[in-house]
């Protein structure tokens, strides 16, 4: 009679066999170790899957296809140099070109209609404007004249109707019930003083109130980035405010400035936690590490919200790219689906015709139609 062990019988020692041995071991000295190991494995697995389940949603893909018949006619003045905002209203597409300090108007067939404004300091002239709104019924345009630190309201021909001087550079502009909602530039004076990021002005540009205070951290540059907001009025007459960099926050305010909804976008089906408020921005490289980049947002006729993610991702060819996904939410902040674009987008708008208009990374205006329901 001889004594043999399983390993002597030709069974190789693998990680699985080690784990098996732990469980097959006798009750005795190894009892504690075995229990510890088992507990550790169970807690790790439970914690890992629990965390993943909490931060993940099932992505629903909304299909779109490009309307190839939509071609922008290339005429002088129609080319875009630095588009920063896109709006549609009354069969027209309006693109704010900050670089050229103009609003370029196209119709829904892609025909260039006109350019409104020019660079300058005079009436109807702008200096690197960064926000605008289009009044749907009267076809008036309100321009956040950032460089000149003023708001100008012009008609479709570009004639100045009214203007209001500000003490700060406006970076976003919207209109609800004839009142102007202005997003201020989050410079050091605003963020250090924790001043309101949104100011409300009456139709005669008399200051009414300010709300939504700037978030202050120890880093001035970080303050500037995380307090950069996009503001737009949704179809229900509420003001939607979205942080563009670092903070994954969408806030909905009513016309009185009371916050009625607050939610987060779940990018690529996941909600990773990033300690943004502890970041230090000392160089361009640091800024490039900024998470949660929101390129643009728009609303459709049924008041669904569409958020264009600006974060980097890998394209089919392995190249780094941005702005390929649009996340659709309802006005209550419930996820509805994801539109995966066949191109990189910079700006988006849903037209009254239900089509999706976008400005791609080559600054070209394109039209997409939704497939299916």
């Amino acid at each position, binding site marked *: 009679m*001889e004594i043999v062990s399983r390993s002597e019988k030709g069974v190789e020692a693998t990680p699985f066999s080690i784990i098996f041995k732990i469980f097959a071991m006798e009750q005795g000295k190894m009892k504690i170790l075995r229990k510890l190991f088992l507990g550790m494995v169970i807690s790790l697995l439970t914690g890992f899957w629990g965390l993943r389940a909490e931060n993940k949603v099932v992505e629903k893909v909304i299909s779109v296809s490009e309307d190839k018949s939509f071609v922008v006619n290339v005429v002088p003045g129609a080319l875009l140099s630095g588009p920063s905002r896109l709006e549609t209203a009354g069969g027209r597409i309006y693109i704010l070109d900050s670089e050229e300090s103009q609003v370029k108007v196209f119709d829904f067939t892609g025909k260039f209609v006109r350019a409104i404004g020019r660079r300058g300091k005079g009436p109807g002239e702008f200096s690197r404007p960064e926000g605008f709104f289009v009044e749907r019924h009267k076809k008036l345009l309100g321009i956040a004249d950032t460089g000149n630190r003023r708001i100008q309201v012009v008609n479709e021909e570009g004639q100045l109707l009214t203007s209001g001087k500000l003490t700060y550079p406006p970076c976003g502009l919207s209109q609800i019930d004839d009142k102007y909602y202005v997003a201020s530039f989050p410079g050091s004076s605003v963020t250090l003083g924790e001043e309101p990021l949104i100011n409300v002005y009456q139709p005669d540009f008399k200051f009414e109130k300010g709300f939504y205070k700037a978030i202050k951290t120890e880093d001035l540059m970080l303050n500037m980035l995380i307090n950069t907001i996009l503001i737009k009025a949704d179809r229900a007459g509420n003001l939607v405010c979205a942080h563009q960099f670092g903070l994954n926050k969408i806030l909905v305010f009513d016309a009185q400035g009371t916050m009625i909804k607050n939610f987060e976008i779940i990018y690529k089906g996941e909600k990773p936690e990033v300690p943004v408020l502890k970041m230090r921005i000392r160089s361009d490289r640091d800024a*490039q590490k900024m998470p949660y980049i929101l390129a643009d947002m728009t609303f459709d006729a049924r008041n669904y919200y569409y958020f264009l993610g600006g974060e980097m991702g890998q394209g089919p060819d392995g190249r780094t790219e941005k702005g390929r996904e649009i996340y659709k939410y309802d006005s209550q902040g419930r996820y509805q689906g994801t539109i995966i674009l066949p191109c990189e987008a910079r700006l988006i708008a849903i037209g009254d015709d239900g089509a999706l208009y976008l400005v791609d990374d080559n600054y070209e205006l394109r039209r997409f139609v939704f497939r299916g329901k």
Partner: protein
Amino acid sequence: MAVARKTVVYLKTGDGELFTGKSFSKMLALNLPLWKTKLASRKFSEKVKMRKKGLINTIVVLLLLFTVYGTMAMPLKAAVEQKEEPSTNCFAQFEKCTQKVRTSFIGGTVDYLDCELALARCIKKALLD
């Protein structure tokens, strides 16, 4: 007997028949001498002890490896990311701008807010375009 019952013992007879501690009664039925089973148990206990030591060593080594990998992975990833990042000069321009503000006379055309605005515009372009 008690030793053998507590230890998982594998005893093989000359015929190649395998017994474990649990089927010890069956082994006894073969009328094997008691000293042989005790010797077998002692030898096997030593082997089990050796294997336990080996197992503990393996676990310790694995834990060490995980710890080392965990601490090394972050700086390595950061280094790779730094290599891939495009280099822009927004902050360099900002420095130049603030220098201009500091050296200009009172009532100059550019103030600190303009520099901040230009920096924000530059970073925004780098992040979005």
